[in-house]
C-alpha cells in the first residue's frame, strides 16, 4: 500500500473517530440538559466552531503520529512529493466530495420543506460534511488503486 493510500485511510478513520467522539460528548450534554439543541440554534454555531478547532488540532496530532509510525515501519524519511497524478486524483475526489455535500444540503432543505424540525438542517450539515470527507478520501484510494 502506497503512502497516499495509507494517508487517506488514516484520514477516514480519524474523521470518523473525531466526529464520533465529539458527537457522543455533545449528545451526553444534551441528555444531561446542559442545552437543548432542538430549540437553541445559536448553540449549533458555537458547537460547530469548536468542533472545527478540535478537529484541526486532533488531525495534526494524528498526522504526526502516522508519519512517525510510517517512517519507522518503512524506513522512508521523505513524504513523496505531490506530482500531476496526485493533483488529478485530488481534483476528481474533491469533485465527488462536493456532489455528496451538496446532495446532503439539498436533502436537509427538503426535510425542512416537508415539515421536519429546523435542527434537521444542522444535522444534515454535519452528516453531509462527514460523508463528503469519507467520499473524498475513499475516492482517492479508489483512483490510486484502479487508475484514472
Amino acid at each position, binding site marked *: 500500500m502506497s503512502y497516499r493510500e495509507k494517508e487517506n485511510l488514516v484520514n477516514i478513520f480519524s474523521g470518523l473517530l473525531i466526529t464520533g467522539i465529539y458527537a457522543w460528548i455533545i449528545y451526553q450534554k444534551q441528555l444531561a440538559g446542559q442545552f437543548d439543541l432542538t430549540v437553541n440554534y445559536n448553540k449549533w454555531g458555537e458547537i460547530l466552531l469548536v468542533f472545527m478547532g478540535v478537529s484541526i488540532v486532533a488531525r495534526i496530532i494524528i498526522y504526526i503520529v502516522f508519519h512517525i509510525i510510517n517512517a519507522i515501519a518503512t524506513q522512508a524519511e521523505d513524504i*513523496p*512529493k505531490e506530482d500531476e497524478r496526485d493533483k488529478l486524483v485530488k481534483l476528481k475526489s474533491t469533485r465527488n466530495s462536493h456532489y455528496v455535500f451538496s446532495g446532503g444540503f439539498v436533502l436537509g432543505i427538503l426535510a425542512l420543506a416537508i415539515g421536519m424540525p429546523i435542527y434537521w438542517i444542522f444535522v444534515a450539515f454535519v452528516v453531509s460534511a462527514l460523508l463528503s470527507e469519507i467520499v473524498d478520501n475513499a475516492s482517492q484510494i479508489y483512483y490510486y488503486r484502479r487508475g484514472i
Partner: protein
Amino acid sequence: MGKKVIHNNIRQLRFSKDEMTQQQLADEVGVSRQTIVAIEKEKYSPSLELAFRIARVFDRSLEGVFFYQQGEGNNNE
C-alpha cells in the same frame, strides 16, 4: 465505440537503458515512483509535458515511447 487506451513501452526502454530503475526515471522526470508504476501499468495516461520528458530521457520521439490504440473491434476506425 471501443475503449481507447494509450500504451507504452517504458518498461522495455528502462531495461535497455542500463536497467534503469523506476525511481531513477521518476527522479529524472520529476514525479513520484508510484506515478511511473501507474504509467507502466497503463493505469494513468501522463500529461503531454510529462510524456515528452519521459521520451527525452530515452532519446526517443513521443511515438517511440507511447502509442495510441483503440479497443478491440474498432481497429479499422
